[in-house]
């Protein structure tokens, strides 16, 4: 097949990366000692990270095609294959997932005391599921990974979470499941309309009738919009993020939220270009509403973690805004911002987890004066605050700039409105910083056994890779952007070859006629 580049390496690198965590999880089943379990999990996640690195160096940046492809027969009677590969859109998420998984293990070292074995098994299975979603090129395989991920995440939130964990876990599960099963029906319909195959590349090359595109777009939208989450499908997110243990929040914010946007890029846009064009404006509007609404709600939060959770709604609004601006700047900015958000918000949740271990409170009003108490912590938090706001020189700036650039090009009004989100973002983040690190010190934290320690070495090691990425991408964004150029270009080109490119009126009329 000329559409894909078969694995350039001598060993099945993607399979190793995806299934190493599963093997690790199986190994953990036979262990009893908690320290040994932690150590093994750390080694496995680090190994997965190291194994995934050759992907970055061997990736052919000039090609939009799927690379490192492996294809084996799996369920021949349904024509389903074990078909995996990555392109410029997915490669960075592999890297992000393997990196964040290592950090999750590190940050949970002391925080998880009960059922350590189950916790680490869940983390490893989750990692495999997330990697699987990004590499799957067969819809059936994709859906298996997509859904299988729910089980460990449900347990992570429900077993090791905060006060309201059970409610949050069930809400998370049911919300995502409801979206996913509609996608499942969509997938089966595609199977029949696209020629009895679930090969994502083949299905992407078929141009479906308008009406079918609309229905399928909506079915897929149900799954992806919940996952992103787009306003107004976001209500599970604050609960899940807030109640999850630190590692769960990091994975949720860092990787899980990216899957929705990834789904739009991988499925909705290439498969249903005309429907995408039709729904572009409403989605842009929802994105902008999400940006502003999320930011405003952040201003009203009393809970540290909930504030960061709502900021995700705002930031992910930027991502969908960029993607559905449908020009190369917007899409590239959107992908980059997905990565950025994973790094920054992931790091912020790590920070909150670290301080919560010491203070056992998430109420912003309980804090104050921490700049004096924990200067290192304050310094790291400062960097993350600025990165989140989008200060030039840091990665957040590049992403938001490209997105706004793309949005202006597509719809001026949207660009202007979205830009206000940046200002609100600066507002809530700086105010948060002020309330936590300056102002009066709460006397509880200076006295006796409550005395708050600054960061220890393990915690610094956890944070440094992310901080380094923030500046690296901030100063030299091409390190990420160069991977996605050809794939994004191909995506946009595919959109523009549609018969309705630039003819919104004609499209609307034909859609009306098709019903």
């Amino acid at each position, binding site marked *: 097949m000329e559409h894909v580049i078969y694995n350039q390496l001598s060993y099945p690198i993607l399979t190793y990366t995806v299934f190493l965590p599963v093997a690790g999880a199986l190994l953990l089943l036979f262990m009893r000692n908690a320290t040994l379990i932690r150590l093994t999990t750390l080694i496995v996640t680090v190994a997965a990270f190291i194994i995934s690195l050759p992907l970055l160096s061997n990736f052919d940046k000039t090609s939009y095609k799927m690379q490192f492809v492996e294809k084996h027969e*799996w*369920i*021949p*009677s*349904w024509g389903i294959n074990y078909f995996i590969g990555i392109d410029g859109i997915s490669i960075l998420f592999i890297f992000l997932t393997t990196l964040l998984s290592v950090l999750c293990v590190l940050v949970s070292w002391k925080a998880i005391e009960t*059922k350590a*074995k*189950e916790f680490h098994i869940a983390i490893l299975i989750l990692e495999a599921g997330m990697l699987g979603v990004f590499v799957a090129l067969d819809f*059936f395989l994709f*859906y*298996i990974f997509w*859904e*299988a991920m*729910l*089980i460990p995440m*449900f*347990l992570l939130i*429900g*077993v090791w979470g905060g006060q309201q*964990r*059970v409610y949050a*876990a*069930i809400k998370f*599960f*049911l919300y995502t*499941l*409801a979206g996913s*099963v*509609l996608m*499942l*029906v969509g997938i*089966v*319909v595609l*199977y*029949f309309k696209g020629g009895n195959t679930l090969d994502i590349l083949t299905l992407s090359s078929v141009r479906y009738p308008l009406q079918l595109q609309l229905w399928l777009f909506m079915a897929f939208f149900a799954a992806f919009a919940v996952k992103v989450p787009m306003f107004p499908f976001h209500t599970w997110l604050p609960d899940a993020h807030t109640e999850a243990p630190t590692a769960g929040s990091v994975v949720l914010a860092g990787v899980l939220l990216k899957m929705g946007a990834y789904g739009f890029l991988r499925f909705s846009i290439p498969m249903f270009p005309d429907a995408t064009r039709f729904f572009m404006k409403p989605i842009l509007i929802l994105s902008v509403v999400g940006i502003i609404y999320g930011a405003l709600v952040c201003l009203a939060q009393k809970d540290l973690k909930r504030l960061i959770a709502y900021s995700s709604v705002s930031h992910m609004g930027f991502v969908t805004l960029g993607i559905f601006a449908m020009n190369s700047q917007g899409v590239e900015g959107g992908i980059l911002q997905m990565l950025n958000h994973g790094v920054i918000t992931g790091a912020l949740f790590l920070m909150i987890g670290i301080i919560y271990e010491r203070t056992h409170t998430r109420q912003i009003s309980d804090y104050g004066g921490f700049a004096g108490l924990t200067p290192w912590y304050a310094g790291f938090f400062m960097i993350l605050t600025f990165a989140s706001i989008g200060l030039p020189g840091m990665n957040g700036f590049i992403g938001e700039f490209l997105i706004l650039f793309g949005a202006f090009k597509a719809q001026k009004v949207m660009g202007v409105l979205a830009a206000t989100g940046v200002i609100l973002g600066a507002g809530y983040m700086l105010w948060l910083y002020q309330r936590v690190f300056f102002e009066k010190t709460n006397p509880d934290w200076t006295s006796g056994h409550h005395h708050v320690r600054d960061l220890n070495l393990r915690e610094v090691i956890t944070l440094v890779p992310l901080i380094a990425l923030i500046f690296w991408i901030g100063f030299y964004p091409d390190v990420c952007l160069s991977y996605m150029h050809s794939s994004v270009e191909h995506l946009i080109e595919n959109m523009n070859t549609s018969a309705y490119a630039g003819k919104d009126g004609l499209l609307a009329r034909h859609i009306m006629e098709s019903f």
Partner: protein
Amino acid sequence: MDTTSKLFDLIPVLPELTMMSVALVLLLLDLIVKKKEVIALVGIAGALVAFYGTCKLYGLTEPQSVFANMFVLDGYSNFFKLIFYLNVILTICISLKYMAVEKASLGEYYALLFFATTGMMIMASAADLIVLYLGLELMALSTYILAGFVRKQPRSNEAALKYFFLGAFSSAFLLYGISLTYGLTGTTNLKEIAVALQTLNITGSPIVFLGVIFFIVAFGFKIALVPFHMWAPDVYEGAPTSITAFMSVGPKAAGFAVMGRVLFDAFGGLQVQWSSILIPVAVITMAVGSIIALAQTNIKRMLAYSSIAHAGYMLLGVISGTPGGLTSTVNYLMIYALMNMGAFAVVIMLRREGFQGENLEDYMGLAKGHPLASALMLIFMFSLTGIPPTAGFIGKFYVFMEAIRAGHTSLAVIAVMFSVISAFFYLRVVMYMYMKDPKEEVVLTTSNSMNFALAVTAVMVILLGVFPSLLLDLVRSSILG
């Protein structure tokens, strides 16, 4: 006919003969042997012999019709027999210790399991309405007794009586359907009915349709389709748990076997008509099963409603009216047998002397003291929900696929939405086990045979979820040829 050809005729029924002889041997063995383990072991060995026979008969490529075309041996019936063997063997495994705890460990118990299974096997192979009725009654009468096997428990008695009355009622419907059909076509042979409907040109006759409705009602009772499900929750709750497990798989599968056979073979010409009846039945079955299960606090009742909901999903395959659709239903039945048996096995483990262990609260904090049992229950619950990578997902995916292939996309959408609703009550079990603190120390009643049953079901549920081809190829080659 000379003797040799008659003997030859017996070969296709050898598995049934084996099962029947095992039942008789077990009855007699009970008089000599005191240890129930021996009886159970002999039973399992007998079932394995019959299983071996069925495997051998699988080798016959052509369907075999014997006893003047009243009994047929084909891939379809063979595959159902595999489900029945699995069902009876697993039931014996989970019964051994449990029946002793219930103080109802009698040899007849095992004999009755075999009589019931023989009945199911005859149903699966029935090519004639009379044989079908014969098998159905053999199965039904045995299970009535089994449901009331714990004689000293009022609720067990109630279960048996309820099951008997409503079962007798459904048998009457079946006989009515048979007599109507016979009156119109002059035959009770399924294939000949189809021919007669064609040649007499009475496919559109309302009386024929009425006959079909009577069949659906009668089979609907056995499968527990809404609105013929009233008996299920009470009987499932009152019967000994091992029998609940047995009933939720065996008679349901047998019901689907005869439903598929009668609707496809005899009334294939009325496919549009019976589909149009089954569609609303499937929808309300899924709805009632999923929604009422939400309110249950007794896990046996909850699983009863869950079993009703699953019958609704299975019906989707029948509704599509294609051999492929029927295949998906049969595939679902096999997977359901595995995961449901596994779930009931865990329920049974909680039962010990002086402790029912049937309330959801009894599962609180189970993961703390019994991580392995909880992990298994977790697998079964997610499989029943239909979350990959478990076999439950494969079962659901296949029936949805066939429903959509037949053009019932909106029905598939309704089905997936109900499966989301049903996710809640399965998750609740997981939640109780993993996310609550234990009230009191739970002691599990385990035995080797129980561990065996759990291991088999759990491994199969995961294995078939990851490598569905193992089952798919078998079921497809059995039914589609």
